[in-house]
Structures are given as structure tokens and as C-alpha cells.
């Protein structure tokens, strides 16, 4: 099923930052969001994931199809790697975390407490959560932050496999993952003309 976004407008802190966003994401395809800091990449991803309502426009996929990976990985420092991942697997009703541990190269760290992981290892654990979510559309917000070159390549492989299995990915990143098949969407084209959200029906009255 295609993931279609049409005429979407999103707001951050009461100010409309993006409007008229249109794109289609087919199964097996990846789309990279580009744009300078503050253009609204995170806001767009949060809106698509169902965490905040759009100002206007349609999103074809329900939030249940979307696995969202933000800046924060949702890890508990006092739990082990296995416990952290098993929790998210249970929440998503999936079984078996071994595959995810293997793919993200975390097997040797499985009994270590998350608080004792390095930043890059934590990030890998956060991304392993995507694999146990069992959801087809990945929304990735700067997934490669604090990953070294080898880990970036590892993760690119994971994404490529996901696409190969009919999944899709939408990512905001400055680093080239080396996914030749990924299309690029420049969000600067959808930058809103400074419409204030509070104005919605409120401000126009004074016009």
C-alpha cells in the first residue's frame, strides 16, 4: 500500500512551518528529507507518526503502520540491553529479539546495562527497536547521529533489507547513507509564509 501525504501543513510552537507538503512513498522505497535546521523536519515526522495533529491535509497511513525513531531512544539506563529491547518487542506484540540484536551487532552487549553503553551503542539499540516493532513504514529522525562509519554502513544495510522486504523509510538526515535508490525531498520548497497557527480563525477576524 502506498503511503500518500497530501496538502499537509504542520505547526511548531503555534507557528505553521510547512504547508502544501505532497509526496508518495511506495513499498520498498526510501525518501530522504532535506532542508536547513529549523525547516520543520522533526515536526513533520512527529505529525506523520500521529504525535501531533496536522493543521490541514491528509495522511493515508494510520499511525499503527509507522515506527518512529526520534532523537531520544526511549532507553532505561538501569535495564540491560536485552530487557530494553524485550520491553519494546512486548509492547508491539512481537517475539524474538535475537534477530534484531544480531543485525545491529549488539549480541556481545546483551547483558550490559544501557547506562553503560557508549552513545553510538545506545543509538544502535534505539534503532534495533525498529526491527522488533514489526511496522512497515520507518520514520527516522537523524538516525546516524553518534554512529561511526562502520555502524552507519551496518544501519544502511538494515534499511536496505527492510526496503527489500517491502517496507519503506522516510528519513531526515544530513549524512548520505549510501542508499542509491533513495529519492530526496527538499522541504525548503514547502516552507510556510509565516502563518501563525493561533491565527487560525482567530487572526483572520482582525484582517
Amino acid at each position, binding site marked *: 500500500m502506498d503511503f500518500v501525504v497530501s496538502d499537509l501543513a504542520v505547526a511548531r*510552537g*503555534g*507557528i505553521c512551518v510547512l504547508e502544501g507538503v505532497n509526496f508518495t512513498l511506495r513499498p520498498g522505497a526510501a525518501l530522504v528529507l532535506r532542508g536547513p535546521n529549523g525547516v520543520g523536519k522533526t515536526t513533520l515526522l512527529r505529525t506523520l507518526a500521529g504525535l501531533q495533529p496536522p493543521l490541514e491535509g491528509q495522511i493515508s497511513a494510520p499511525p499503527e503502520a509507522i515506527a518512529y525513531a526520534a532523537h531520544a531512544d526511549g532507553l532505561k539506563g538501569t535495564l540491560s540491553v536485552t530487557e530494553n529491547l524485550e520491553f519494546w518487542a512486548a509492547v508491539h506484540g512481537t517475539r524474538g529479539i535475537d534477530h534484531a540484536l544480531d543485525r545491529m551487532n549488539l549480541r556481545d552487549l546483551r547483558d550490559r546495562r544501557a547506562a553503560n553503553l557508549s552513545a553510538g551503542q545506545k543509538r544502535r539499540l534505539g534503532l534495533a527497536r525498529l526491527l522488533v516493532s514489526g511496522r512497515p513504514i520507518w520514520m527516522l529522525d537523524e538516525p546516524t547521529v553518534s554512529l561511526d562509519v562502520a555502524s552507519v554502513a551496518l544501519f544502511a544495510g538494515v534499511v536496505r533489507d527492510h526496503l527489500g522486504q517491502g517496507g519503506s523509510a522516510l528519513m531526515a538526515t544530513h549524512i548520505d547513507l549510501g542508499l542509491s535508490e533513495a529519492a530526496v525531498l527538499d522541504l525548503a520548497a514547502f516552507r510556510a*509564509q*509565516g502563518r*501563525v*497557527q*493561533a*491565527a487560525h*480563525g*482567530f*487572526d483572520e*477576524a*482582525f484582517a
Partner: protein
Amino acid sequence: MSIWEYANPKKFIATAQRVLPWVATGAAVALIMGLIWGFFFTPDDYKQGSTVKIIFLHVPAAMMAINAWVMMLVTSLVWLVRRHHVSALAARAAAPVGMTFTLIALATGAFWGQPMWGTWWEWDPRLTSFLILFLFYLGYVALWEAVENPDTAADLTAVLCMVGSVFAVLSRYAVKFWNQGLHQDSTILKVGEKDPLDPAYYWPLAVCIAGFILLFVALVLLRTITEIRLRRLAVIEARERLGS
């Protein structure tokens, strides 16, 4: 012509500004008349002496303290259901007014209680309920102040107002259960019963109540206009920062 037309802030301000002088004048006239009539031209009570005359402040303030919360509940629901900003701002505008009426009711209650019950403060169920109502107002106002994003603040306070209303009613019954109390029963609607309100007090009290209602409406209109303008100002400032 529908009431929802006033959800338009510009229309609301225009109408409110037209009505406000009349309401304010009405409030002033009714309060001055009612209080002078009540304080100087009514007989002393055979039991309570002249202290009874504090009724002309105490009863209207207590009534409006509760009515203000009810109005906040209604406007909060309108905001949650229909998303009219004016409604949320009216709820915000009413809260400090209601809180002040609660304080007036508590203070006049203390002044009345001192000669009657021999103590400034008695943990009487009615007084205690008003003290708890005051705490509810305090929390509501504090939440409005604490949340930065105005729409988030409006949503959260509306939810708090709904839940708070349920718990306020529960508290009222719990407090009754906890202590039977010294406070006399409400006498206003007791015509024909054993210990009714003296007819000599009835009309001045009615005028005072009308005065308090008008005062409340005037203050809420004025404060709502101010809140709308503050919101409008914030919008303009936000747009200035965006540089467009």
C-alpha cells in the same frame, strides 16, 4: 443570528465594548443602592443585631463564587468541543474574578462568624468547602500561568476544570459528612418555612445580588477583551519575529 457569532473575537470585542459601559453602570448603581439600602435602611435582627447586615456582601459573593466556576466549566466545554478561542479566554478571564469572590465570601464569613460563633475561623462545612473551592481556583490559575503555549494551556485547564468540578462536588459532600456544622442554612428560598429571611432584607439583598452579577459580567467582559488583545499581540509579535 446565532450565539456562535460571538466566537468571532472582533465581533465579540465590538459588542462587548458597546455593552460594557451599561453593565458597569448597572453594577455600580445596583451595588450602591443595594448596600446603602441594606446597611442603613433595614432593621437589626432580633438575634444577630446589626451584624446580620454583612449578609448583603456575603451571600452575593458566595453565590457568584460558585457561579463563576460553573461559567468556567461551560466555557471550557465549549472550547473543547467547538474550539472557539474566545470561550477559552473567557474561562481564563473569569477565574481570578471567581477567586476574588471566594475570598470575599471567606473574609465576610469570618467577620460574621466572629461575633456570632465567637471565633474568626470555624471548620464549618460551608466555610471549609469555600476554602477548598479557593484551592481549586488557585490550581486552575496556576496551571494557566505555568503553560507557555496558549492553546496547550487552554486545553489542559479545560480538562482540569472538568475533572475539578467533579471533585469539587465530591468534596462538598465529603465535608458535609465530616462535620455537620454551625453555619445557618441558606434562608433565601425558605419563604413560608420556620426561620425565613425577613422580607425587609429580601429586596435589598436581591438588588445586591443583581449588582454582583452585573459586576461579574462587567469584569469578565473587560478581562476577556484584554485577553483577546494579549493573544492578538502575541500573534503579531510572532509574525514580526518570522519577518514577514
